[in-house]
C-alpha cells in the first residue's frame, strides 16, 4: 500500500520523466530555430531592405531582386552554376555507377581500391583546389610535363581560358566526389537480393540486360540520394572555386556562392547579397524539401 507521501513522490517523478525529454531536446531545437530559421528570416528581411555595408531597415520592396537579375555577374553565376551542376552531377553519377558495378564483380583487391576511390572526399576543397590548380597550370603542370616528354603540340590550358575554366572546376569536383557516389551505389548493389539476379539469368537475361532492366531500376533510391547530395553540394560550392580559380579568369567561374560573398562583404551591397542568398536557399529547398518530406513520411 502506498502512503500519500509516496504517491506524491511518484506523481512528481512521473511528471518529471514526461518533461525531461523535451527539456533536453529544447536547447538543440532553440539553436536550430534561432540560428537556422531565425537567420533565414532575417536574411530574407534584409533582402527587402536597402542595406549596403551595414544592415539597414528601410524596406525597398523587390528592388534588390530586380538589381540582382539585372546584373550580368549574377546571370553569369547562374549560367556557370547550371553548367557546373549538371556536368558535375551527371559525370559523378556515371563514374560512380561504373566503378560500383565493376567493383561488384568479385574483384581481387577491392579492399585496396575502395579506399583509393574514396580518400579524396576526406580532403578539404582547399587542398583539392591547390593540387588541381597546379596540375592544370599549363606553365608548370600537365601541359609542361607533356612538352618535356616530347609531345610538343600538347595543349591543356583550360584553367586560363575564359570559355573552358568552368570545366576545370568540374574535373576537380568530380575527382573529389565521384568515389563517394561510387560507395553509395555499391551499397545499393550489395543490398540487391542475389536470388533475383539468379532468377533473371535463368530467364535468359544477358549481363547487359540484367543491369539495364533489373539492377539499375532497383538502384533508384541510391540515384535519388546521390542526386540530392550532389545537387546541394553544387549549389553550395564555394571553397573549391576560391582555391582553384578564385572565380576567374575574369568572371568565368563565378558561382552564386562566390557572388554572394563578394557582393556582401567586399562590395558592400548587403541587400543584393542577401537576395542572392535567398535565391540559393530556394534552389536547395526545391530539391531538399520534397526529398525530406518523402523520407519522413515513408518512415512514419
Amino acid at each position, binding site marked *: *500500500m*502506498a502512503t500519500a507521501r509516496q*504517491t506524491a513522490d*511518484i*506523481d512528481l*517523478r*512521473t511528471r518529471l*520523466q514526461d518533461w525531461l525529454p523535451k527539456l533536453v531536446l529544447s536547447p538543440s531545437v532553440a539553436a536550430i530555430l534561432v540560428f537556422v530559421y531565425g537567420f533565414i528570416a532575417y536574411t530574407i528581411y534584409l533582402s527587402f531592405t536597402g542595406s549596403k555595408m551595414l544592415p539597414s531597415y528601410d524596406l525597398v520592396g523587390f528592388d534588390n531582386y530586380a538589381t540582382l537579375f539585372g546584373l550580368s555577374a549574377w546571370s553569369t553565376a547562374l549560367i556557370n552554376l547550371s553548367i557546373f551542376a549538371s556536368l558535375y552531377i551527371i559525370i559523378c553519377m556515371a563514374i560512380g555507377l561504373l566503378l560500383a558495378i565493376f567493383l561488384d564483380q568479385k574483384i581481387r583487391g577491392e579492399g585496396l581500391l575502395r579506399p583509393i576511390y574514396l580518400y579524396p572526399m576526406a580532403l578539404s576543397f582547399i587542398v583539392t583546389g591547390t593540387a588541381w590548380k597546379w596540375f592544370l597550370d599549363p606553365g608548370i603542370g600537365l601541359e609542361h610535363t607533356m612538352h618535356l616528354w616530347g609531345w610538343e603540340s600538347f595543349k591543356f590550358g583550360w584553367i586560363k581560358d575564359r570559355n573552358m575554366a568552368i570545366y576545370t572546376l568540374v574535373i576537380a569536383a568530380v575527382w573529389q566526389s565521384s568515389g563517394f557516389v561510387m560507395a553509395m551505389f555499391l551499397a545499393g548493389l550489395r543490398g540487391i537480393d542475389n536470388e533475383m539476379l539468379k532468377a533473371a539469368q535463368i530467364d535468359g537475361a544477358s549481363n547487359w540486360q540484367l543491369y539495364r532492366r533489373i539492377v539499375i531500376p532497383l538502384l533508384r533510391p541510391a540515384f535519388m540520394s546521390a542526386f540530392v547530395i550532389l545537387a546541394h553540394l553544387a549549389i553550395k560550392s564555394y571553397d573549391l572555386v576560391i582555391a582553384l580559380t578564385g572565380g576567374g579568369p575574369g568572371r568565368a567561374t563565378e558561382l552564386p556562392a562566390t557572388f554572394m560573398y563578394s557582393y556582401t562583404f567586399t562590395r558592400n551591397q548587403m541587400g543584393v547579397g542577401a537576395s542572392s542568398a535567398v535565391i540559393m536557399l530556394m534552389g536547395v529547398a526545391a530539391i531538399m524539401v520534397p526529398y525530406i518530406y518523402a523520407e519522413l513520411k515513408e518512415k512514419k
Partner: protein
Amino acid sequence: MSFLNIDNVTKSYGNVEVLHRVDIDVQEGEFLVLVGPSGCGKSTLLNMIAGLENITGGTISINNRVVNDVHPSKRNIAMVFQSYALYPNMTVGQNMTFGMEMHGIPKPERERKLADVAKLLQITPLLDRKPGQLSGGQRQRVAMGRALVRDPDVFLFDEPLSNLDAKLRVDMRTEIKKLHQKLGTTIVYVTHDQIEALTLSTRIAVMNKGYVQQLGTPKEIYDDPANMFVASFMGSPSMNLLPARLVEDNGQLAAELTDAGGTGLRLRLSQDGQGLRSHLGKDVILGVRPEAITDAEGADKRAQNLQILRNEVSVTEPAGSDTFVTMSLSGKDCVARMRADAEARPHEVFEFTVNMDKAVLFDPQTEERIDR
C-alpha cells in the same frame, strides 16, 4: 475488489477511440489471456496495465491501488516482451538483476534472488553469458527469469512465444503453465494464438476491434461462443457457420439446410426455448464444431441427440491422427473431423453423424448467439 481491476477503460489516439469501455476483473492467482487478431487492442491494453501507454478514460487498479498515474516501475509489475528485450550489453545475470539494482535492493539480496530464480528456470550455467550468445529458447527463459526475480504483483506477457519455432513453443507453453501452477502468480498474457489461449488460461478475454467480445473460462469460450467472431476465431479448424432456417419439426425445433445436391435436409436441435422460438421461420446461422461431425463409430457415446446426415464428400485430408472431411452444406464448405480410419471417399455419399448437443445458433443480422 479484485486483484487487478480494469474498470471502464478506454483509449483514444486523437479522436480515434481504439479501446472501448473495457471491464475486466482478475483475481489473485488467475491466468488471464487476452487473445484476438492483430490490431484488436490487446497489446494496447497490456501496455496500459504496464503504464507504457496513457489511459484515456476509466481506471486500472492493482492490489487495491489505482495506478493510472503511477510510473511503470512503481506498479510492481514485470513484463516479458515478444522480442525478450534483453539488454545486449549486459550479461544474463546483470539483465536479471538490473531492475532490483534500479530499486536500490542491496547486492547480497539481489544475488540470492538471482540464484533462486536461475535454479528454478535451470539457467544457472548461462548467467555470465551475453544475450547474443543464447538460443531463442534460452533467451525466452532469461526474459522470464528477469520478470520472476522482481517478485511482482502481476506478470505481463506480450506474445512471449511467437518468436520461437513450433516445437519449442509447445515446450515453453507447458513450462509456463507448470510455473504458474507452482508459483500461483497472477498473469496477464497477450497472444494471437488461440491454442495458447485455450491451453494456458484460467480465463480468456477474446478481443476484436477494440471491444472485449467475450470474457470467460476456456470451456465457456469454446462451447458457448457469444458471437460469430468468437466462434470462428477460437478453435482450429474453426467452427462451421452454416446458413440455415429455423423450422418446427413434429413440435421440435430443427435447422433446415441444403445438401451438396441442393436438396433440403433437417437437423433437430437439442435445445428449445422462448429465445429460439422467436426466430422460428427466420434465417439463422448454425454453428457446429468440426469434431461434432463424425462417422457413426466416432460419435460421442454420451451425446443425447445424434443426427444422421447423408451428403456427398468433396475432399478428404488425412492428417495423421485425424482425417478432415469437407462437404458442401447450404452452399458453404463444412469440415468434419474424423478418426483416421473413417471410410469417407471423395465424390461418394457418406453418412455423417452430427452431435447436435454441441450446436449453437447465431442471428445473421447481429451475429450474436441466440439464447434459448
